């Protein structure tokens, strides 16, 4: 296909180019309709007032919501780091198993995703509640009695629901597979001979990991981080169900603009746009970092 990259001279050449690209058109159309046009609409809405005239007013008050931006980014960052710490070892160990074991474990990792997202989050609500399954279990094994006897306290339950910790837990639980799978798929493709070469040259197993395997798996790590961080920043139902709705996140804030009593899609679009810009900046910084690392490995 290299030949088609150069500018086409003859008509026949050009037509063949179209013919070869044909299979990509359905997706191009899909993308134009459901990705490009919506983004254009977001931008248009963000820079207009309800009378349709151009304005920057929507951005003027965004600093009022700085605390919500800060909280969302922080919680998403923590959730992403936890996913990475939990997910990387799983992906690494998984790649060492036999083919059939790998397939079974991958299926187990994917299994929760077959159940509706809302349902899964709802279940966490009933697990974490003060009268929920976990607290009832802890009470049944006598943990609270034990603590109360030793310290003279009066603890009846462990407060888990309606905290930021619960929101982070919800993010980690829902998005962990998106961290494991990309890292795993990169690690299994690492050429065994590269590892053998490192060993032949006298690298011990920790050296092999830090100098060979980890750098080679960075592209998977970066796509894993992207796939966890982006939906975590914009989630809105998790904070509502697990956070008690007392400390809203960006997703909640945006939803309120579209479905709130004042109905201000222009402000909602402006907040979405700022969020997208922040996410794009974060991601491009990540990618830069990744590219540099990969190059040093190749060198």
């Amino acid at each position, binding site marked *: 296909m290299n030949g088609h990259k150069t500018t086409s001279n003859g008509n026949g050449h*050009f037509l063949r180019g*179209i013919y070869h690209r044909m299979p990509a*058109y359905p997706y*191009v*159309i899909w993308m*134009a*309709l459901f990705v490009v046009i919506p983004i254009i609409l977001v931008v248009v809405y963000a820079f207009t007032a309800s009378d349709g005239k151009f304005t920057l007013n929507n951005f003027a008050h965004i600093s009022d*919501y700085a*605390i*919500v931006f800060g909280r969302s980014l922080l919680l998403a960052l923590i959730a992403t780091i936890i996913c990475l710490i939990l997910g990387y070892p799983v992906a690494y160990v998984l790649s060492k198993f036999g083919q059939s074991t790998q397939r079974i474990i991958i299926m187990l990792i994917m299994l929760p995703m077959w159940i509706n997202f809302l349902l899964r989050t709802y279940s966490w*609500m*009933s697990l974490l*509640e*003060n*009268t*929920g399954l976990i607290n009832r279990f802890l009470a049944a094994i006598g943990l609270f009695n034990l603590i109360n006897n030793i310290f003279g306290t009066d603890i009846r339950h462990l407060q888990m*629901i*309606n905290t930021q910790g619960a929101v982070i837990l919800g993010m980690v639980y829902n998005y962990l597979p998106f961290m494991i799978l990309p890292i795993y798929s990169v690690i299994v493709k690492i050429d065994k001979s590269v590892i053998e070469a490192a060993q032949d040259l006298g690298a011990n197993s920790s050296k092999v990991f830090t100098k060979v395997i980890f750098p080679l798996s960075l592209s998977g790590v970066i796509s894993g981080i992207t796939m966890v961080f982006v939906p975590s920043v914009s989630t809105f139902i998790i904070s*509502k*169900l697990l956070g*008690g*709705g*007392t*400390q*809203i996140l960006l997703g*909640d*804030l945006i939803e*309120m603009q*579209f*479905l*709130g*009593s*004042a*109905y*201000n*899609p222009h402000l909602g679009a402006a907040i979405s746009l700022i969020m997208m810009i922040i996410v794009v900046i974060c991601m491009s910084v990540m990618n830069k970092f990744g590219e540099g690392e990969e190059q040093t490995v190749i060198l």
Partner: protein
Amino acid sequence: MKRVIIVLAVVALLLSILPACGGGREVVNVYNWGEYIDEEVLEQFEKDTGIKVNYKTFETNEQLYSVLKQGGVSYDVIIPSDYMVSRLINEGMLEKINMDNIHNLTYIDESLIGMEYDPTGEYSVPYMTGTVGIIYNSRLITDEITSWGALFDEKYAGQILMFDNPRDAMGIALKYLGYSLNTTDKDQLMEAYDLLVEQKTFLQAYVMDQIFDKLESGEAAIGPYYAGDYIIMVKNNPDLKLVMPEEGTNRFVDAMCIPKGAKNKENAEAFINYMCGVEASLKNAIFVGYTSPNIEVEKLIELESYEREVVYPSDEILDNCEFFVNLPQDILDLYDELWIKLKK
């Protein structure tokens, strides 16, 4: 050339989507709250009239509003609540209903027609009504609850739930302070807001549908909700009690309307008429658990005595109730501003 082909393809695709409806059969497109109709009634309507019902549901009045405002969809019958009806009338988004086609209007409680949200009674026909009350667990709270004050009492810290929408939450605070639900006095609104800020420090959570689980399981002890839903909750937890607070409460009407530009106006009127009939009203009242505005239903419906008290509250309670009306835009903006400030 390539681009031209892509653009043409996109245009062709768009054109094929736009006139999706059509076909010879009579239809009516209905947009109602979730779980708010007995589906058997829809089937019966189709059989009796030959009109096919396309039925879709929404979750909040505001969602309904934004769907209508964005356009691109065409509904023939919508069922918003009182204050949203008046907002839609004010913004010219409703069609007048030809009441000559609604013969069954004779069954509808006259006192519910021509109310403040639709003063001329030309735009809406009541579908269901109900009230908001305090639901509490009498095993966890042994005091007798009589006032909205219980929701703002630190004694019940960590056990209180609150409505997760600005209109209902502010409304309760305003009622507790002795003001109107529909006040436009900014000082009164700020006072209500301050009360909510204080409440937030010891509140368990802001909830909507989650209240069913949390009250039934004893996770929370007290919270405000729609009285009709209490009947469902008490069946799962007999310790739950319902109270109509002494300060008075909100009474709501959800009413059938025809949005501007409805394509099947006559079918919409046939649908509205059918829903006002005794048989349909009775079935829906049994299914939903709210109060039917159809006066015959009260005589026909079989309810246990405690259920009857909930569904048909005494005149004394009803006289103490207030309906929501639509608020001016600057007050709506203030509501949203305060709500976001409260929750961030």
